[in-house]
């Protein structure tokens, strides 16, 4: 039981990091649709660089740069050039996927460095919880940090209040003296860097190695997770852990029902649709009225300025 929960927490780590990054980006009002491509290209880059250098950490840095660079293209083209974010994001998705296949061709099947396990002394000795949460590695601890930090940032700091301002009402934030477009650019880049780190987490930690199917379309899942989570870091994290639990469960079911492996890669997607229908259902949207104190957590509305270009009049 401990081992199962331990592997759920570990399996969900890249998804957590990617969806926290995208939550920050979207909260500021920009959609980075390229996640599927960004994750693949950064997973490939991380593996290639770590393979050359022989050290996993360098791979993570390279992956963060790739994710940040793709995000910067989207931010610049939408903020600076007023191009459609979805269009540029979609083109970059396909481009990055093909680029990863093209450049990564020679790395398929190679073995590279990996992130070593790092049980935290004393904490990992706590019965049950120690084994589940603190007998992990640095990537997993980083995923915990991203949840806590994103939540703290949004709801307990002044810049966090500003990020909600530029995402919800850019004109009002601008009138208060916030440089909307500059902040949007840098939050998009920051989110992209986190997506890149998530990619590296696949090729250097969770799955090890590089192949085209390595990341299992989880970029799309991360994008859906942000919507399912109603742009609230804790609910996004809850979704990601539920997804991780299903992944681990499905993997264990493989022994019982051999046919499952064919359905496995597809199964998340009908679930994704149902989950989105659920959070937009009348019943769920009225929950916020019933528990007014938890409205932040229960709301499903996108930031009002999401995807729209802000121009000062």
């Amino acid at each position, binding site marked *: 039981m401990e081992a199962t929960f331990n592997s759920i927490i570990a399996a969900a780590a890249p998804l957590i990091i990617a969806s926290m990054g995208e939550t920050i980006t979207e909260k500021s009002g920009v959609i980075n649709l390229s996640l599927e491509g960004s994750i693949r290209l950064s997973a490939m880059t991380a593996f290639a660089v770590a393979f050359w250098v022989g050290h996993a950490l360098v791979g993570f840095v390279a992956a963060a740069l790739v994710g940040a660079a793709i995000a910067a293209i989207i931010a610049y083209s939408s903020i600076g050039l007023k191009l459609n974010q979805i269009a540029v994001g979609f083109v970059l998705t396909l481009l990055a996927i093909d680029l990863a296949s093209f450049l990564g061709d020679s790395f398929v099947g190679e073995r590279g460095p990996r992130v070593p396990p790092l049980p935290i002394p004393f904490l990992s000795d706590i019965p049950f919880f120690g084994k589940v949460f603190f007998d992990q590695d640095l990537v997993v601890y980083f995923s915990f940090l991203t949840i806590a930090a994103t939540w703290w940032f949004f709801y307990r700091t002044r810049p966090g209040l500003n990020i909600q301002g530029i995402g919800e009402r850019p004109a009002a934030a601008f009138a208060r003296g916030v440089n909307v477009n500059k902040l949007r650019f840098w939050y998009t880049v920051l989110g992209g860097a986190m997506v890149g780190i998530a990619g590296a987490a696949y090729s250097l930690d969770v799955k090890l190695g590089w192949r085209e199917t390595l990341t299992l379309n989880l970029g799309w899942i991360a994008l859906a997770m942000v919507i399912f989570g109603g742009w609230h870091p804790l609910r996004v994290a809850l979704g990601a852990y539920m997804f991780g639990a299903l992944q681990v469960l499905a993997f264990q079911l493989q022994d019982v029902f051999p046919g499952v492996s064919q359905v496995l*890669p597809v199964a998340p997607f009908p679930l994704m*649709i149902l989950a989105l229908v659920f959070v937009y259902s009348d019943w769920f949207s009225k929950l916020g009225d019933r528990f007014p104190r938890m409205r932040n957590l229960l709301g499903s509305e996108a930031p009002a300025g999401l995807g729209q270009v802000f121009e000062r009049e």
Partner: protein
Amino acid sequence: MTRSLRLTATAVGFVAALVFGILLLIAIGAPPFEALGLIVEGSVGSLSKLSVTLLAWSPLILAAAGLVVTFAAGLWNIGVEGQVIVGAIAASWVARSIPGPVWAVVPATIVAGAIGGALWALLAGVLKTHGHVHEIFGGLGLDFVAAGFATYLVIGPWKRAGVASTSGTDIFREEAWMPEFEAFGVSWPVLPVLLGVASVIVVWLLLRGTLFGLKLKAVGSNTYSSYLRGIPTNRYLLGAFAIGGALAGVAGTVQVTAFHHKLVPAISGGYGFLAILVVLLAGFSAVAIAPIAFFFVAISVGSTQLDLRLGIDSAFGGVLQGVIVLFVLLAGGWAAKYGSNTLTPRKEP
């Protein structure tokens, strides 16, 4: 932005993309001009290769024509890939189960493909209009479901006698194949090309010359104000989904009855997503998709030669296509920002 400025920007984007491609080939140690030459030779280098390229061109323009309709309604029909697949599955079902002569079975497969694609698109549409699920996620989810369903059919209920293999179902009987026409010693995909060209013309007429098209574009540019003006917006959105899906479904039919002559797991050939790139590059215009789709499909068909002859991963073709669209979009953005002083509103969904 003036027309000449837009053309200049497009040309600059193309050239920059080509330079990027050449640099990329040099970077991996491949001979760049030999590789590009192979792409040209492998797609239009001989009559038989031209015939193959035209056969691949047809489903691409069918899917792209459908996307022009959904884009006109302001919809991001990323579900197009799944609509191609379900069209292919529906056509395969007819081809496998309905007996009869060619003149009856082939039209039946086309109709079945159109219905299959339209229904799959309507599913994404209803999820949007009644479930508030954005069409990108609804459509994308349904893409993967369709792909999984095709794989399931190929290795499950429709598997070849004795062997369950992902290489495909049994070959259809010849009455279900789209007829080919021999000329100059090569068989030409006349029917698929006619279907593709017809779809472009119909979509152009629909958006240019009908009240439906006019109202659809109104819904696309401002759904809420169209609603206030009394247009039943949901019905128009679903109509756009159905038309787009039907054309994508016919593209799927072409894939099974004219190209593979059987159902295979990756039946769409990625043409749905590629069609989105084509339409973005075409600036959402129905007329421009035909030449652009030909150029793109030539890259796709030609780059398979890279793998065979130079050992370069054929994903290079996809990289080149993506870079072309990205650079042309960026160049257009630069031209609009720095090139002209007049602020002309640009049309985008």
